[in-house]
């Protein structure tokens, strides 16, 4: 695991983060399904740390906003259509999480059995991007959630040791955390990158 230059995090007194799903008109996924998927994705991180996440319907009240967009969407990082770049999120405490609406997102069912050969598992990408929202950079451990790439028709949602060590070093451990799934054992030595940036692209 690794952190962004300057190791930006949410303030230590802010352990209860609120998120809002703010832009969904570009995709045809039912909102209730989206709510379920994102709640589950946030839950995977809160299970390992002292952080908790609550959905709010009010974007102005939210620390984190989630939206689906096509192409250029105002942040200087345009999406590129089917595949290529799937999503991006901003480091703490920006809170923006954007997904490419052009992808064939699979929010329900078994993505490995999807009809489309460009199907992408929404929860897998969500778990990864939430890692960025919390302050984790990319990992070179292939089993880690924070590995930068994910193949189509693939589901990868369980935090690996590498992810858990990284997030717990930032926010502490959830006393009820029971450890990672046996198949998610990627691990590495801690490494904190120095640097002057507090926010990043």
């Amino acid at each position, binding site marked *: 695991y690794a952190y962004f230059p300057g190791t930006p995090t949410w303030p230590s007194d802010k352990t209860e983060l609120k998120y809002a799903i703010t832009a969904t008109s570009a995709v045809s996924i039912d909102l209730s399904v989206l709510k379920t998927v994102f709640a589950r994705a946030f839950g995977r991180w809160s299970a390992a740390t002292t952080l908790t996440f609550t959905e709010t319907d009010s974007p102005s009240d939210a620390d984190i906003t989630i939206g689906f967009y096509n192409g250029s969407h*105002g942040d200087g990082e345009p999406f590129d259509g089917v595949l290529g770049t799937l999503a991006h999120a901003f480091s703490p405490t920006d809170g923006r999480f954007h997904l490419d609406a052009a992808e064939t997102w699979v929010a329900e069912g078994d993505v490995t059995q999807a009809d489309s050969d460009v199907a*992408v598992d929404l929860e897998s990408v969500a778990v*990864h991007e939430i890692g960025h929202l919390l302050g984790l950079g990319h990992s070179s451990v292939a089993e880690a959630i924070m590995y930068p790439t994910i193949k189509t028709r693939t589901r990868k949602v369980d935090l690996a040791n590498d992810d858990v060590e990284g997030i717990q070093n930032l926010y502490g451990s959830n006393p009820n955390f029971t450890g990672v799934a046996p198949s998610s054992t990627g691990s590495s*030595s801690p*490494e904190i990158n120095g640097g002057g940036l507090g926010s*990043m692209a």
Partner: protein
Amino acid sequence: AFFSSSVSAFPFDFPPVPTENPWIPFRNLSGCRFGEHRPGLADLKEYLNQFGYLPAAPNFTNSFDDNLEAAIKTYQRNFGLNVTGELDDATVEQLIVPRCGMPDIINGTSTMNSSFVRGRNL
């Protein structure tokens, strides 16, 4: 910083959304190495710039120069590939896998923990 810095120049006339993996053409570069000149290398340089492996340039050329070779070596190191500096098949196949838009290297600092890779090489 990742701030709002651009807005579509055509707010009422959006360009069509591409319907194929934009990085598939990188397969045409398979086997390419230092000193060669091949169409498509400029696009690969744009890709490597997008994810932090190459600094920005006004115009990327189709020449496989030493900067590109160094960038590919860093990429191969980060992704646990054989560090050849060449566009071997394994590297090209990794390049076209869908990915997060967050750069792997920011201001010259890798956000990818490379100790694992270094250890494995040793």
